[in-house]
């Protein structure tokens, strides 16, 4: 039983990371009907920006929460900017082209970031310094939690609440909701659709960057292709929860994280990556709209 609870703890921790990344996918899809293939690579960039910031701060030599906060912030700000650049340079020009064109552009950006990363950072894995002293805290009943996991959970939760606040209680957030319903209607209401789209990309990228840093706290090995699998899985999580639906992304992320950890623990580690795709096939065949999604019929 304690193993199961331990798995649960680990699963929920991973799940929050997936949720952070999934949120970016779901927001962009909701607003543009675009699957942003490059999103997972922004997560990777977040980890690398964090790496460089941490090295510059010599945080590895003086681990502290303060340093961690600075690293996190730097990664989020840098990737927020990168998200804006990607949107303006690559996605805006194809916004009115066919969906396949947009999809291929996204794939192109993803490849560009990955291979550019190889050129910039070198293909060999780098090691994220330990910027927070590691401590294991027993929770009772043989279940433990590391302080890194606590940080991951805490920061994820805080970011999710912040996002929720923005979307539900600010003018910008309401504008985001409007744009996701209809670009035309929103622009007729005086909303600058372009600005809202850019803003959405920025938010999503910031969350992905945060995920990148948080993961690096626990799994210090980072390399330019590290975003591929987590990106794919987070996307599946977003679909699972209902793509375009923000609470759905959180639920999907948690389900994905827990499912993965349980399969690794009780079935076999080799199938860990396959779980995502199995879940994907199942959800698309059984309930394509996802757990919280609504199916949309086409007007004839």
């Amino acid at each position, binding site marked *: 039983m304690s193993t199961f609870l331990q798995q649960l703890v680990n699963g929920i921790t991973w799940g929050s990371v997936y949720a952070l990344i999934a949120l970016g996918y779901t927001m962009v899809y909701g607003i543009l*009907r675009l*699957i942003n293939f490059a999103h997972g690579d922004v997560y990777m960039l977040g980890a690398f920006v964090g790496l460089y910031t941490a090295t510059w701060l010599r945080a590895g030599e003086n681990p502290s929460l303060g340093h961690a906060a600075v690293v996190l912030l730097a990664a989020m700000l840098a990737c927020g900017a990168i998200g804006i650049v990607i949107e303006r340079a*690559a996605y805006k*020009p*194809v916004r009115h*082209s*066919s*969906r*396949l*064109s*947009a*999809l*291929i*552009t996204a*794939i*192109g*950006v*993803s*490849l*560009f970031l*990955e*291979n*550019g990363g*190889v*050129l910039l950072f070198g293909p060999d894995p780098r090691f994220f310094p330990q910027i927070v002293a590691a401590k294991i805290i027993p929770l009772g009943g043989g279940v433990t939690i590391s302080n890194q996991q606590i940080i991951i959970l805490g920061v994820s939760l805080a970011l999710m609440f912040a996002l929720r606040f923005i979307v539900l209680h600010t003018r910008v957030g309401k504008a985001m909701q409007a744009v996701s319903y209809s670009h035309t209607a929103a622009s007729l209401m005086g909303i600058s659709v372009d600005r809202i789209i850019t803003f959405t990309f920025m938010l999503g990228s910031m969350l992905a960057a945060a995920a990148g840093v948080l993961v690096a706290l626990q799994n210090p090995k980072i390399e330019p292709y590290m975003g591929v699998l987590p990106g*794919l899985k987070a*996307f*599946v999580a977003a*679909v699972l929860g209902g793509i375009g639906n923000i609470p759905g992304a959180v639920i999907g992320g948690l389900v994905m994280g827990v499912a993965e950890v349980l399969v690794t623990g009780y079935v076999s580690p*080799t*199938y860990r*990556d*396959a779980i995502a*795709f*199995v879940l*994907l*096939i199942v959800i*698309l*065949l059984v309930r*394509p709209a996802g757990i919280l999604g609504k199916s949309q019929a*086409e007007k*004839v």
Partner: protein
Amino acid sequence: MRRALGPIAVLLLLAGLDVALPRLINPYLFQIVVLCGINVILAVSLNLVNGFTGQFSIGHAGFMAVGAYGSAMFSLHVGQKWADALAAAHLPGAIATGLPLLAALLLGGLLAAAAGWLVGLPSLRLRGDYLAIVTLGFGEIIRVIITNVNAVGAARGLPGIPGWVDFFWVGLGVVAVIVVAVNLAHSTHGRALFAIRDDEVAAEALGVDTTRYKVLAFVYGAFFAGVAGGLFAHYLSYLNPNSFTFLKSIEVIAMVVLGGLGSISGSVLAAIILTLLPEVLRPVKDYRMVLYSLMLIVLMITRPGGLLGNRELRLPWRKRQTASGTGLA
């Protein structure tokens, strides 16, 4: 009898080139020609799905893998014995290896077609992006399965596949896929696919069984991808799951998009260009992928219709009496 003249002429031409080419060009160039051929088959077959029918299939490498491994396993365990028996019966080498190879290729193609049917049937009722994701997932699942099954070599790869493929067989595959694509395009069935691409609702309302046709395109596309995989396996004599990643699927999509969705000659042209490109860019090998990805992005922004849009290269000696289906060539 007169109708058989065309095909016979083609076969003779292929046989002739098969003998002549190795004497005219060095092995390195020859390998490129073979790879061009395989990529042409992949591109044209994907065009049937993405270009003709307007569906988003982005897991083509998965079908190629099914065909590659399926045909390879057949040859290793059954085909080789046939070849030995035929050779022992003093049949000429080309037939002794040709027959088992043909069987292997057809088997690979049929296995891939079956996979296409299994994947396509339930998912073709899904909206565009969702279908893309399912096909992506399928491609990855196949690769994960292959990587974990020891009988097909798992991550180490599958060596020792008989290297029976030469120019003739690749050429035959190319001719076959192009003939199928062209004949399909200039028929009511091809028009049905284009109609589905342009407006599925209207097509259905006018009597086209859209689900059946979408699955059909999928299955045919998968079949030829499987054949391409079989050719690949029996040329390299070695298979590794890393040849069938999502990146491979993207490369094929890039060919179809560069050539122009819906244009058969476009796919052929683009497949050749994109097979040659890595060789041409060898000096800047490290930058190759970055340049490649930039090309995709720039292409989509500036000329999403690709090189030929959905038109075909005009062949001067072809006078079409009936209206064509692929645009107005």
